[in-house]
């Protein structure tokens, strides 16, 4: 996968993940063009697009568009399922997810994505394992955060920050 974009019906970008190195200018250009193209498509049309030399696979969930770019020889249908699995993961994590969850907690959405896809490839296909990894990280962090609270402030006083 080359990149993944989440944007709203109004064309506002909600999440972007690039798996190929591109300059900021190119990223902006691609995003702008793609958002326009995808939003202009009618609901009955097919979920795949040929765009430059890439295949775009997109799907709409409520007010959010999920949009992935893959190479020509990749499997479009399984990419749709990748999107669906990601939505399932978000849904499970946030408990019936809505766009606002993603807007206000987009870093969480990124963390979940990073446990599911890594470097543009599916990292873990078991839903249970992905959520376990996220929960573990969340949990450990909170614990260690509380534990670290006191020594941290001492360290800060010494001037480590």
């Amino acid at each position, binding site marked *: 996968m080359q990149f993944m974009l989440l944007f709203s019906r109004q064309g506002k970008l909600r999440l972007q993940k690039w*798996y190929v190195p591109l300059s900021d200018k190119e990223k902006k250009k691609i995003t702008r063009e793609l958002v326009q193209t995808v939003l202009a498509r009618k609901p*009955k049309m097919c979920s795949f697009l040929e765009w430059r030399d890439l295949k775009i696979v997109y799907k709409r*969930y409520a007010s959010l568009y999920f949009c992935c770019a893959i190479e020509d020889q990749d499997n479009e249908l399984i990419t749709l399922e990748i999107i669906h699995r990601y939505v399932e993961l978000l849904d499970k994590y946030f408990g019936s997810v*809505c766009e606002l969850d993603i807007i206000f907690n987009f*870093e969480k959405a990124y963390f979940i994505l990073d446990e599911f896809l*890594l470097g543009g490839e599916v*990292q873990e296909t078991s839903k249970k394992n992905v959520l376990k990894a996220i929960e573990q990280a969340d949990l450990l962090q909170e614990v260690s955060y509380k534990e670290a609270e006191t020594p941290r402030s001492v360290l800060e006083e010494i001037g480590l920050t």
Partner: protein
Amino acid sequence: MSDIVEKTLTALPGLFLQTQTGGEAAAAKASLSSRLGSLVRGITALTSKHEEEKLIQQELSSLKATVSAPTTTLKTMKECMVRLIYCEMLGYDASFGYIHAIKLAQQGNLLEKRVGYLAVSLFLHENHELLLLLVNTVVKDLQSTNLVEVCMALTVVSQIFPREMIPAVLPLIEEKLQHSKEIIRRKAVLALYKFHVIAPNQVQHIHIKFRKALCDRDVGVMAASLHIYLRMIKKNSSGYKDLTGSFVTILKQVVGGKLPVDFSYHSVPAPWLQIQLLRILGLLGKDDQRTSELMYDVLDESLRRAELNHNVTYAILFECVHTVYSIYPKSELLEKAAKCIGKFVLSPKINLKYLGLKALTYVIQQDPSLALQHQMTIIECLDHPDPIMKRETLELLYRITNAQNITVIVQKMLEYLHQSKEEYIIVNLVGKIAELAEKFAPDNAWFIQTMNAVFSVGGDVMHPDIPNNFLRLLAEGFDDETEDQQLRLYAVKSYLTLLDVENVFYPQRFLQVMSWVLGEYSCLVDKETPDAVITKLYKLLMNNSISSETKVWLIAAVTKLTPQAHSSNIVERLIQEFTISLDTCMRQHAFELKYLHENMECMKRVLPVNKSCEDMVVDASLSFLDGFVAEGLNQGAAPYKPHHQRQEEKLSQEKVLNFEPYGLSFSASGFTGRQSPAGISLGSDVSGNSAETGLKETNSLKLEGIKKLWGKEGYLPKKESAIGDEAEAQPIPQESVIMENVDQAITKKDQPQAHMQSKEEKEKQLLASSLFVGLGSESTVNLLGKADTVSHKFRRKSKVKEIIKSGETTSTHNMTCSSFSSLSNAAYEEDYYLDTSQDRGDKGLKKFSLNSELLDSELFTALPMVKKPSNCSMSAPSLFADNNLEIFYPFPSTPAPAAKEISVASSLSEEPTEHMHSDLMEITEQPECCLPVMEAESMKNFQHSVQMEEPFTEGTVSGFVNYEMIDSHSAQLEFSVTVSLLDFIRPLKISTEDFGKLWLSFANDVKQNIKMSESQAALPSALKTLQQKLRLHIVDIIGNEGLLACQLLPSVPCLLHFRVHADVLALWFRSSCSTLPDYVLYQCQKVMEGS
């Protein structure tokens, strides 16, 4: 099942709407305290883009102040990072925060570190300079005892890591492959995958560990390792054939539901894993019957099991079909796969239909009858409201185009072309139309009209080869001279009509094509035309919207026409006008025209009519200037030096070879991709020839001039519609002729719709009959191949091809393939380098005579097929020996002497077809040769030269020998030899001074420190190893430093400077080829570590 999912999905928006209010409240509560929340709310409340910009700028400046304040706590910093990410997502620049993101990852506690790493992975890209600062943090975290820290470090490495720093973390990550936690192992594998993507050579030595990962007891780790395997097999499938069995077993287990339920997705077992495996199998089984046979069973089972009506099963089916058609065919499987394609094509779901078309496109060349089965669906899709469907259909039609259906298909393509606005689509489609038109054009008029449409729509975005090829085709013609003249005449007439239309705007490139054709062939129409044409060209020349490059084409055309014109009024006016032009190029052309015009005799001689293909005799050495030069030299002028020589001299005076000690191996970051200091181009010897090319250009405007950059102009829609009409009128007579037999075909197929033919249906069927005409009349598998041979109208003369090819095929070196005998021996012999061919042959014979009970004498005839004293190392793939046995199996019991008798005069015809398969190289040519009768036990040599165009580590040359025994029993023997980079490396003997010069001129360099084993810890022994094993030439030794040079044949030099510190060898490579140093370095490492 799928219904349930569909329902859930359709219900989702409703659910969201319901929870919207509640969700908002919850989200608002959660983020009440956070600054991000207020920022987000602030932005949503705004209405105009301008206000948003103001707010964000405010936010950014406050953030800037906060992050750079020394008192800011890490906790605040974490929050700032989240807001910065948000601002970047909205498209505002937050680069001031990048360094703080790195700091946060470095210093924060777990929660802060996590955000820090996330920010880094979102902000920076692979080549960002700040990324180097992250390396230490990653190294530290990789060594941490805290699992979460290790996980975070691995996650960031798998996403973004500087290429040149890989050695710093590689050992740590390799270590993690043995970690007890599967999540760590999995992420380590993915980190290595990332390294394999960005720097394949750096992880070559850990292939064995990938195998371990493949056998990991955890499914996740195994699945992750498949990413690496897919990638490696894509590059070189022959190296992994031995794993086919393992992949098949894994797939069997997955399909059989042996995996934990966790990995099921909508009750389909591990679909991602299945698809990955199917893709790998497809690559492994390609053109390989033995390997393919291993997978037939499991593919059959996959096709059978995937019956659930859910998207994900269709995904698997699609991949399965793809694999079945990629590997060595098996009719039973093909039949099932074809049925599957039918399911896709006939599905009411648009996504599946699209994939059905895609699958058809893929398989249509193997099985054209499938297109016939689905012709009505294809016709429907051709008028589908979704342009994507249309486009895929056109792609499909493009594959089945033949001489009979070309007009209809091209017409459909042109229709689509006129609707599309996206440049990429236009370029692509225009290229296809031009290709088809050239191949199958039914007549001159159609061809010119189609090309006119191509030029006016494709205009200035199309590939420059299209006008080049078109002009070349016109100029060189085909075998029939009168036919050629007809075509030219038609082109001239059609352009004259086009130019008569007022107020139309043609793309620059179209005008250039027109002016060339008019300049060359106007005289074909009649004697009066040149004057009229000159007037038209003059009018264009005075037009301001025409680019100066096109004007040069125009004036060249005028120049060519002048000698044929009767009156010279316009020419004189033109000369007057342009000899004072501000454009120097135009002025020069005008002056040339002026002087030629004054001397009509000379002009007629220099510009002969219709001679564009004949080579001009040009004195390239400019010998007529010798007197002038000699005079200059006599008067004390300095001798002429070409530009690059001057530059080199200047440089070598300024700089001498840098012998400064190296930094650490990581510090070489900035070197790759740096520009050459001087921009010297080696071997450019064109300096003296500029005058010559200039001369040529004014004479006949050779086609070389076309390949240049073009300006951008629009096209005219009005003109095309006219062309479209004409094109539409064209196909009718043809259709009616062929209608009959296709109609029969249709009725035979008893289409379900046949009985209720409405008018619309009839139209569609009519279209279908014209589209699938070539496919309907013949129905064997070989259809398309046959259609191809139906006289190509515009087949170019072979001369053209030779011209094109000569550039590629010259300067090959003799890479020799060793004899079969040595092939089977080489594996057992430590020393590959045999001295003489005789020696080699003897050994081979001996070997075979030992096994003679097993081998048939035929082997002897085939045995010494390729032989030459070679300094190439060849290793023998065991497959080959297997093949022998299989091929000769019919005579296993025949004792050796008897076998000899049989084949005393065995006739052997040899047709080796060689393909080069490697990661970077593909040789398309297929050398063939036939040998006459061969006697038993005699030898024949066969030589073929292979050249490495881009470096790679290992590739294979494979081919086969077809031969016929005297009893007319024919057989085929396949062989393949592995060639490695070293086979193409030769010493480069140069002097120290030359080395210095070359060194400075090369831009690509790579540095690396290697630890040496004790035995070679001294400079001389290390040098000796390199000299012997890698065949590097020792240029010079200065103290503890050495200079070596080698070249990749035919002539890509690679220089090595090295220095010994205790037991560390610091290597520094430079070359004119960007990838060569990496590969040579890898070989060096192997050699130094291996010995």
